[in-house]
């Protein structure tokens, strides 16, 4: 294999696509965890006095989080968030169903031509796009053009913007916007039945 570090990719190839997807998936997982952990906390509150909400039946519905909610409650003082694998597994399952994500990543690309990889990449790309659009509302963190100069005022949100390079002095900081960032403004994952085994990302299929 030859390496040419000066070459810039002109098209979206399968390798980069996979990397990008992985990055997005990890980002989403992280965000989802933030959300669902917050949710389970509120869910863990005593449900003795049912508030007159729009859908009071929700309490009677077994929620996937509720089984897991008892564990982290005991360790509320710990700094790290306890992550239940259910939502991660669910997302993996959705990406596998819609985009054949696991199939693709688990495959050895070595022996295949770019045409073959390209054909498979389309499947992964179309499906992942569909999944992302269905379950997440994404928007860039910064609306400015990349490679343009921007200024960060004092008190900017360090979660949203990461400083790199010559990080010295005090805000306001002026620098080049390298990546616009992504943030999820809305997550709308499907609900799971209580008895559903999330570890089965894709069931084996037997045709009779």
């Amino acid at each position, binding site marked *: 294999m030859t390496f040419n570090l000066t070459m810039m990719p002109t098209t979206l190839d399968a390798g980069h696509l996979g990397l990008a997807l992985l990055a997005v998936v990890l980002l989403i997982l992280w965000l989802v965890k933030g959300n669902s952990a917050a949710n389970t906390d509120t869910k863990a509150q005593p449900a003795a006095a049912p508030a007159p909400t*729009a*859908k*009071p*039946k*929700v309490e009677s*519905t*077994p929620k996937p989080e509720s089984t897991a909610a008892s564990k982290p409650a005991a360790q509320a003082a710990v700094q790290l968030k306890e992550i239940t694998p259910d939502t991660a597994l*669910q997302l993996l399952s959705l990406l596998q*169903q819609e985009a*054949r994500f696991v*199939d*693709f990543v*688990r*495959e050895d*690309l070595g022996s*295949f031509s770019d*045409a*073959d*990889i390209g*054909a*498979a990449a*389309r*499947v*992964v790309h*179309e499906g992942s796009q569909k999944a992302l659009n269905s379950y997440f509302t994404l928007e860039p963190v910064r609306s400015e053009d990349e490679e343009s100069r921007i200024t960060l005022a004092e008190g900017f949100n360090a979660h949203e913007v990461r400083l790199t390079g010559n990080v010295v002095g005090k805000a306001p900081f002026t620098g080049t916007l390298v990546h616009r960032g992504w943030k999820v403004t809305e997550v709308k994952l*499907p*609900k*799971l*039945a*209580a*008895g*559903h*085994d999330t570890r089965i990302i894709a069931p084996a*299929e037997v*045709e009779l």
Partner: protein
Amino acid sequence: MNTENPGTDDLSVEQQDAAGSASRYAVGIDLGTTHCVLSFVDLQDEDAQPDDGPRLEVMPIPQLLAPGTIDEKWQLPSFLYQAHESEISVDDLALPWSQAPVIVGTLARDLGGKTPIRLVSSAKSWLCHGDVDRHSAFLPLNSPEEVPRVSPLDATGLYLDHLREAWDYWHPETPLSEQDVTLTVPASFDPAARELTAQAAGKAGFRHLTLLEEPQAAVYSWIEASNGAWRDQVGVGDIILVVDIGGGTSDFSLVAVTEDDGNLLLNRVAVGDHILLGGDNMDLALAYRLKAKLAQQGTQLQPWQIQGITHGCRDAKEALLADSELAAVPITVPSRGSKLLGGTLRTELTREEVQQTLVDGFFPQVSISEHPAQQTRSALARMGLPYAQDAGISRHLAAFLSRQHAAASELFDTDTTNDDGEAFIRPTRVLFNGGVFKAPLLADRMMSIINGWLRDAGSPEATLLPGLDLDLAVARGSAYYGSVRRGQGVRIRGGIASAYYVGIESSMPAIPGMEPPLEALCVAPFGMEEGSEVEVPGMEFGLVVGAPVRFRFFGSTIRRDDEAGVLLDYWEPQELEELPEVQAVLPVEGRTPGDVIAVRLASRVTEVGTLRLEAIALEGGQRWQVELDVREGQ
């Protein structure tokens, strides 16, 4: 007549309190061939200003997307899947309100893609198919014996059950059975199919029901979306042509605009035939075109790959039709196994293929005088749905406009005959509905064909009425209709869009080898309004107690002037369309079997919107219902 317990099926939907007082919401349900949508208006919305139009919402419908996965969607696919007992774990079928007794919606459609023998689809088309007993459980058709069967009526009821449960989940204080529900049916549904739809709704627990024709619902949706501006978009003398192409059916209607006391009035003056031809046919046509192309290149497709290609064609078609710069869109069908690379099939759909297959195939540029070939059904045809044999939607439309050339002549003086002597009604406005018209290319093509006809006839071109949400308009329009029924707002006048006749064998000396000539007695005149009733004068029948009597039954969307009691001894073949037979049975209770009772016929259009035929005893005035859908073995 239902001999065991006459009329029980109908009681539930007849319990209409005219004011519908308890209902807080006006609910509209689009019960489509391929999708159902539910929309609603809060009639007691406290924030609403008096001048505002009603605020419409579409209900998200929780449903299974995959085993154990529940999500909300605007549309509930109208599919039912009869899972094998060891196919899916019961735990994976939980819905927010209960365990699903059967699988309907997205999961049903997806599972059915791989196991078609357990899938029930197109129940609505079966509901208006007169050659089968629609109460008997025969779906899925041609499946192995151990697969449980349901009737088209039951399947429809299960979709409505799901919608009712979803509603009650979101609105536990105001159950759907207590709300005013408007259910849409194709304008071309015959009286029996309407009656069956009402029965299915009654069984599903809907107690305040009204039926509304789908193209009318589209017009209501346009009125609602225009925010009052619709009065600027049409004027007196306009004729609105509604072209509604759904997933499985195409439906046409004509609405004429008149004036009364300075207010614009809308009159639905004509509806078209039931045409089983829609958007799904188009995707399938493209898939088979690609299959042929691949076969030429030496690749034979497996059945499961055709399904993948059909899916791919749907997206590719939309991309190609939306962007005129695109020359081709690649379509990939992933392998079935876990090895994605190498096994993935790749082909492409080109602009030319879409143009030839869809645009020229389904919307051919034809003259107004080119009509679909008459369907002659072979007696040996396998039992199945009567799909349209001519895919040319423009030919079906030309036939409709020609046949209905006189539809508006009572309302205004219109010249409908052109120089060649071709008579057809000239629409001045066009309203499109259905997902097919999301493609601007197809909408433009349809408009250019219609305007071509108008130009050739020396008439001004028609304009397109804007502003419909093509997927949700029917549901939204029916909810809006539910709210205008209660208060102010424009209502489309119409009544029944067909006159109905029973066949009478004329009494004359028998001639060997000749059937006695048939006469047609008009029992329900064209345009009868909801809630009205006519008795058929002149003709008396002797019904034998306990013995069913069947009548041939006919409908005509063209003969507008026949009063009840008119006896036709001659008609043009295209004037009267034969419908499934109707049957009268006088129950034995309290009478001697074999007695003959003299009756007269009467017809009534119920508040629900269904047609009732009744036999009334000349002595005593007792009434019996004449069944519009005759069940086998009765």
